[in-house]
C-alpha cells in the first residue's frame, strides 16, 4: 500500500506543444517543470520531431529523466520525471 500512497503523492501533468516548432516546446517544458516538484511527471505532446532530440538533451543538462517517448501518427509524446536538481 505504501507504493500506491507514494505514487499518489507525485503529480502528473500534461503539456500541449502541438504545432510549435523547436525550441518553443523546450521553452514551454522549461516553464512547466519550474512549477513542479522532484518526482512529478510531465507528458509533452508535440508535432515537431525536433523534440525527440531537444527535450531529452534539455532534460539531461537539468537532471530530469525522460522515461518514455512514443509516436502516434503525426504526434510525438515525451514523458519526463522531474529531477531534484
Amino acid at each position, binding site marked *: 500500500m505504501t507504493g500506491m500512497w507514494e505514487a499518489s503523492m507525485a503529480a502528473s501533468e500534461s503539456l500541449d506543444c502541438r*504545432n510549435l*516548432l*523547436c*525550441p*518553443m516546446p*523546450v*521553452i514551454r517544458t*522549461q516553464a512547466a517543470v519550474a512549477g513542479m516538484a522532484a518526482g512529478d511527471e510531465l507528458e509533452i505532446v508535440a508535432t*515537431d*520531431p*525536433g523534440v*525527440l*532530440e*531537444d527535450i531529452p*538533451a*534539455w532534460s*539531461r*543538462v*537539468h*537532471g530530469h529523466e525522460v522515461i518514455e517517448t512514443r509516436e502516434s501518427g503525426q504526434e510525438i509524446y515525451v514523458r519526463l520525471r522531474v529531477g531534484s*536538481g
Partner: protein
Amino acid sequence: MTDQPKAVALISGGLDSMLAARVVQEQGVHVEGINFFTGFCVEGHTHAIRRQDQERPKRNNALWVAEQLGIPLHIVDVIEEYKEVLTNPRHGYGANLNPCLDCKIFMVGKALEWIEANGYDFIISGEVIGQRPKSQTRKHLPVVTRESGAEDRLLRPLSAKLLEPTRPEREGWVDRDQLYDFSGRSRKPQMALAKRLGIETWAQPAGGCCFLTDETYSAKLADLWEARGARNYDMDDIMLLKVGRHLRPRPHFKLIIAREEGETRFLEGYRKQFTHLRTVSHGGPIALLDGSASEQDLDLAARLVARYSSGRSADEVEVEAIERDGTSRSLRVAPLPPEAVPDDWYVGGQHGSK
C-alpha cells in the same frame, strides 16, 4: 567572497561562446548557460518544415554545447521584446536587416537581468575583438558593456587581456593571466584552444545563426513591411518568410507557394488565416494569398499557381480558390508561361525563391 563564484554564459551554439564558458569553468567558477530565442534563429525550423531536410540532425546547437560543457542551459523566449530591437535599432543595421550591435546589447542586458534575479556574479560572452565587423570591434565592445548596463560584470575571456580588467578579474574570481588575447577574424587561435581543451567538434552554422544576416530573408521582411506600411511582425510572419516561394505580382498581394510536400503540409495549417489556392485538375502545391485580391488579381494568382503545378504545360488547369470562411470557387485558367513571370515578382530574387 567565500562561496564559489557563479556566472552565466551566453551560449549561441557556436565555438566562441563554448570556449569562453569552458575557460571560466576551468578556473573553478560555477557556470550555467543562457540562450535567447528571438524567432530568427536558423537551426530547427526549416529542418522541421521541409521534407527534404528530414534526414539532417535536428539537434539544438546551444543544448548540444551545454551538454558538452556539462552545464544547465536556460532558453529564454524574447520574441516579443526583440521586436523593438529589430524594428527600431539605435545603432542601425548591418549588411541586411541584422541589428547586430543592438542585438548584443539587448542580450547582455537580458543576461544581466537574469544574474540579478538569480544571485549570480557575472556574465561570460564569447565576443572576440575584430571578429565581426558590426558588433565585435574594439570600438563596439565598450558600447555593449555600457549600454547593456552590465559594465564590469561582463567578462570576455577570449579577448580579456586586450580589455580593461573586469570585476571577476579584480576580485580574483578568475585569473586574468589564464585568459586570452584573441583578436581579428582568424579562427586559428580558437581552433588551437579548442584542441588544447579537448573539444573536437562544434557547430559551424553556414552564414551565422540568424536569419536576419541572410540577404533573401531580409528582402522578404523588408517587402512585408513595405506592403503593410508598418514595421511590425508576429511569429507567424517570421515563420512564413522561411517557407515557400514568395511572389508579389501586385503591390497589394503576394503568394506564398509551397515548394515541396513538407511545406505544403506546413502551409495547410494556415488555411483559416489566408485565402488559399490549390490545383484540382492536376497535382500541385498549395499557395497562400497574403493581401487583398480583386477578381482579376485572383485570376492572375490562379495562373501563377498553375504554373507551378504538374499541369504547367496544359492548355487549362482548374484551380480552386478558398476564402478564409471556407467558401470556394473554381477557376479555369491557362498556366502563366515562365517568361511571363518577371524577375522582380520573386521577393528576394529568383534564387531565394527556388
